[in-house]
């Protein structure tokens, strides 16, 4: 049973250093120079959305802004482009977290997909307004790939919070 709001599974509290480490790993993945390869997901947006859904009280738009700026620098985008999109993602994920956590990971992925799609759409609109060329529709395919990645991510990122299986007959939970 996956730890959603419906399950009885109780998780250990999250460690913030782990949250930031995963965000930096995602940043690293974003920095890998894949050029104009289609369907490369935006890892930072994905991990950020994940933590903003799981821990709405601990992480939010501030982290979105900072990691957005770092992404902008690394990929050579306009400064503030990813920051703007990630702030929106973080805000929406925080707001959605009460609802999303009642669903299974697959259904959660369906909730996250429009979020990631929207973040890309915002970036496209911002850049087109500034007079850049339209990169083509394949670019949006990345958010679909990212939504699929949500499901394994759900297992991997929650791994450190699982409690050790120590059955105690005197305490039922």
């Amino acid at each position, binding site marked *: 049973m996956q730890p959603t709001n419906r399950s009885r599974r109780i998780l250990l509290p999250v460690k913030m250093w782990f949250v930031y480490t995963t965000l930096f790993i995602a940043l690293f993945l974003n920095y890998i120079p894949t050029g104009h390869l289609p369907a490369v997901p935006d890892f930072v947006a994905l991990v950020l959305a994940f933590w903003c859904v799981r821990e709405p009280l601990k992480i939010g738009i501030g982290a979105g802004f900072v990691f957005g*700026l770092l992404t902008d*620098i690394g990929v*050579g985008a306009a*400064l503030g482009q990813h920051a703007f999109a990630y702030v929106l993602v973080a805000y929406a994920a925080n707001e959605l977290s009460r609802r999303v956590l009642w669903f299974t990971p697959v259904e959660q992925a369906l909730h996250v997909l429009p979020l990631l799609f929207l973040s890309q759409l915002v970036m496209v609109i911002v850049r087109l307004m500034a007079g850049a*060329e339209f990169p083509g529709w394949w670019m949006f395919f990345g958010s679909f790939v990212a939504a699929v990645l949500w499901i394994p991510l759900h297992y991997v990122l929650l791994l450190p919070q699982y409690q050790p299986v120590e059955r105690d007959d005197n305490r039922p939970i």
Partner: protein
Amino acid sequence: MFFLVLSLALLVSDLKLRYLDAFRQGLSVLAYPLQMAAATPADFVRNASDYFASLVRLQIENKELKSRQLQGGERLLRLEQLEQENRHLRTLLEARERQPVKSTVAEIMYTAKDPFSRKVILDKGAQAGIEAGQAVVDDVGVVGQITRVFPMQSELTLLTDKDQAIPVMVVRSGLRAVLFGSGDGLMELRYLAANADVQPGDKIVTSGLDGVFLAGLPVATVARVERDQAQTFARIPCLPAAGVERFTHVLVLGHRESLPARPPEVEPVAGKIKGRKARPAKD
């Protein structure tokens, strides 16, 4: 809300006003180690593919390079003599000497990930003496221009980037124009009248009017000319001459000789405020 406004402000100041280069430089120093680490797998893949390149391909390439060197050598011999002659004539004419241009060979590391633009990252930066605005060529023609310089790398904007402009000249007719990147891997000659003397297949070279590019470097070939009487200007798409999107080594040219000083501003005639009519000064 605050962050939204802040990021919008950043966007405007970066895209429209270009205030943030120092800020970007600072942050890029922070991001650099992570970037380097992330580029490693790409390097590895590239090196591995080089390593496994077939012997036959290398032999063919070697042969081709040798023949090209021979051809080049012959032209170089003549060039030396011509340069001598040119210098001599220039001294006779008392024209300013053309300074030899210092250039740096750089390797393209990877394509920048930003899907909205056509930029590549070179492996030489400010430490190798590269400055923003320098022209970049490969062995066939102009490739682009350096737009940002980081300590160890620099960003090269390709000619095909949308709205990247370069002043050019049509070789056959001597017509001067400005060539713009059109964003789809092609370029476009804009603002030429519908009856301008341009034909498909015309070679286009730099005119050197900008003081950045040397005059006479090949830039593009006219692909076709669409003359629509309904429009003032002809639509002229051009194919880039250099392998603008597929080279590995490029040459970053140093800045050209400084332009002649601007002519002094004409003294505004006293009392001439109203209207645009210039009255001859009476004195």
